[in-house]
């Protein structure tokens, strides 16, 4: 799947990733890679601006966290508004994919 196809859905993918719990930017990238089986071929740097966009929209909040041993990382958490948005987008996506799926199914040959 190319980056263009994913572009419109990246925000939803990120929200769904953070539904499992707070995570820093690279952990989000890793989770997307694992759950998609490496199918999303997008520059990894595009995830960070998307996180920033979702934060501006109030769907995420971020905090700097410094582990005992290691560098400080910006950790993102889904807000209640983010959970609501994800719920709505999930419903919209299910409806949309069902509708498109109806067209994409191969036509069954007519019974002779």
């Amino acid at each position, binding site marked *: 799947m190319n980056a263009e196809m994913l572009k419109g859905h990246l925000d939803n993918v990120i929200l769904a990733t953070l539904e499992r719990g707070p995570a*820093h*930017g*690279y952990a989000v990238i890793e989770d997307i890679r694992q759950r998609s089986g490496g199918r999303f071929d997008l520059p990894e*740097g595009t995830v960070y*601006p998307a996180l920033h966009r979702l934060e*501006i929209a109030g769907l995420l909040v971020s905090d700097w966290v410094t582990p005992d041993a290691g560098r400080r990382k910006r950790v993102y958490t889904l807000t209640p508004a983010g959970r609501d948005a994800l719920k709505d987008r999930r419903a919209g996506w299910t409806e949309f994919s069902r509708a498109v799926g109806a067209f994409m199914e191969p036509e069954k040959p007519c019974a002779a």
Partner: protein
Amino acid sequence: MRRLTGDYAGALERELGFDRALADRAREDLAEYMGEMADAGLDRAEAERRFGEVHDIACSYASAALPGRLRQTLGVAGWLALATFLFMRWRSMQLGLQSFAHPTLLGVVDGVGFLLGAAALIVAWRRGRSQDALRGMRAPLIFASIAIAVSTTASLLRALPALEGPDGTLILATGIVQLALLLLLISRLRLISRYRRFA
């Protein structure tokens, strides 16, 4: 298209240099990513390749930040309009300038300028919800700031003779507040204009 180089961070910062806060955010994100890549044993060039082409990443940051910047600009414009209206009314009442029977040129410019500015702000606010908010909001915001600047100038000129009087200090203070808000709005407009190259 800018090629990936060893000075990736510098190139990204230059691309986003028009918005200091955004450039800082991108630099922090990149540093965090490069740290993770270094821990994973990836060399710098490969990490930069995986992060993405500099201009594309800068575009992503710009489009992520733009809606917030537009909202902030609209907020400043709203405060300016409110301050202009309240201070205009206060000065008019305090100085007995509201003579509708004998309108003066400055009085008309003051009132009409404000009304046009407020109308342009409403247009900008409505266009802010469209897909191409930057293109839609910029022109009415510029028009609003000019109209409100003209109104403010006219309002202050009307109050000028009273500067020597007992309300002089307050009149001066209201003028300074309006001027400060106007300058802030102009700086916000200049900032969002710089986003156009990414549009």
